[in-house]
């Protein structure tokens, strides 16, 4: 977030304190989800769904893999100038 000009109204995320607060809530909910997973009963269709924190790990790994593949494999292959088709 860029610094607002002095005249301009302060918005929600212009205050670093608000951002810090939001991140705290977010990290707390991550921890809460990890803890809940250990204690809740599961009704799994596949055995790996019973592994502790399966969905958390899968979600994290999948998205890192997605971004890395998109950035380092796909983008070099397909990215062109905006005028590519006009030439």
């Amino acid at each position: 977030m860029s610094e607002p000009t002095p005249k301009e109204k302060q918005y929600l995320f212009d205050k670093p304190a608000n951002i810090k607060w939001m991140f705290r809530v977010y990290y707390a909910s991550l921890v809460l989800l990890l803890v809940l997973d250990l204690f809740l009963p599961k009704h799994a269709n596949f055995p790996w769904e019973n592994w502790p924190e399966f969905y958390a790990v899968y979600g994290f790994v999948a998205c890192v893999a997605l971004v890395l593949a998109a950035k380092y494999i796909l983008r070099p292959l397909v990215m062109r100038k905006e005028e590519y088709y006009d030439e």
Partner: protein
Amino acid sequence: MSSGLPPALVFIGGALVLPFLKGKTQTGFLLLLPVIGFLNLLQFSAGIHGVVSFWDYQIILARVDRLSLLFGYIFHLITFLGAIYALHVRDDLEQMAGLVYAGSALGVVFAGDLLTLFVFWELLAVSSVFLIWNRRTREAQAAGFRYLLVHVAGGLCLLAGVTLQIHQTGSLAFGYIGLNGLATYLIFIGVGVNCAWPLLHPWLTDAYPEATITGVIWLSAFTTKTAVYVLARGFPGTEALIWIGAVMTAFPIFCAVIENDLRRVLAYSLVNQVGFMVVGVGIGTMMSLNGSIAHAFCHIIYKALLFMSMGAVLYRTGKVKATDLGGLYKTMPLTCICCIVGAASISAFPLFSGFVSKSMVMEAAALGDMRLIWFILLFASAGVFHHAGIKIPYFAFFSHDSGLRPKEAPWNMGLAMVLTAGLCIFIGSFPGPLYSLLPYPVDYEPYTAAHVVGQSQLLFFSALAFTLLMLSGIYPAEIRSINIDADWFYRRGGRLFYRIMDRALNGLNERAEQVFSLELAGWLGRRSRDLPFRLAQILLYPLWLARGLRGEELQEKNLALQEALASGASPVGIGAAVATAFLLLFFILSGLV
């Protein structure tokens, strides 16, 4: 057995009346028409209505059952919401095209025979292209033409299939088709074009982002979903669809991560979401078909909401690229919140609509023990959150401050977004009413502790991946660029084809002109001019020789003959002699043959 007017005719009839109305009357009419259509729809009892005899065939304009009705409801609903969103538009062409388009979608869904299906299928393409062209930019015009060409090709494929099918079975009936033989494959692929199957998909990601702000709401709802309907009606349980659908869910998310145009990101996530529906149709169990249909219903609403929010941004700022936007939450808070609701719905957060529909398809895949498919779908679920759930709201409304301070969306756009967002939350929180409308009895409970926590984990930790990649600077920066897709083959390939044809055919043309019209014609002209002289010479030469003419005298005779023939002053006798000689020659030759 009660019945109303065939649903398609309400809208198409309305479209014909629309241009005669002006100002507020027209606005009121546009809002009233979906309501009238909906009331008309409620008149129908399940069964076959609107039967018209045509030669020896029966045309069925309204085949009403739970499957067609549910699509009918959602199409009316989205037409209504789209009409509110488009209230400020004063453009008869766009409004008419929108109504005919909605009517055609209803025509397909309620078609009880293949001929009706085909006619409305074509009308879908022809009417919808105006929603693209009407943006009136050079890009939109070009994309519209490509869109039309692809759909015409798909339509021809369908027509070939339908014709063969009717020829083979002797009936127009449109029910379960299944894959057996050429006719059914042609129908399958023709439908697949509209369904945006992998490699057949680029018409969608090419054209939708170029469409008008209001038109894309309807575009995102009708074409692909009518295709899903036809698949659910004609090809449930076709195994190929499971794999086609799985690829559809997975590949667009890679493209979406590196795409700069946010409406194009939405177009990619549209393909991804339709993939879930296609998988569900392919699995073909009651649970999976229910899941597909429910997901189509929810998807139409939240995808419209996402396009509405990006449309409002485009309307106010004139920009929709991630590189140009950022920080808009400051002055467009309502649009921002509605966008986040849409994002949460497409990501299938608990309490939002995607959660109660997508999970049925996943559950059906799990019950069928389709492990790889299940993993792909789970990957796609995390990925869609990543690109549509986070990327869209983040880059438009937060991210770096673009310095833009646009006004909030106009009241009608705001109202449409609030209503649509409300529906997303209502369906997500109270899935009962939607479940009760599904074609088969629903034996599924989305809100179990394990499902809620598992799905939340998946999404929250996907978000963690986004956060960490963003903070570490690894997340691919938004770059002013385009990414080529399968449309490269006909956009660049088309140009190559054009160039080859240009070189080959025009080269041939030039050669032909050189040879035939310049050289050959001249030669023939010269030849035919002195043909009589040559012939006469051949005949007379032996005579002259026999008379003992030699040297100078022979030359003189020759010149005299040439002059006489060139000026047409030859004695009649010579002409007659030549003609007689010709005839004689002819007789001899024909006698020989």
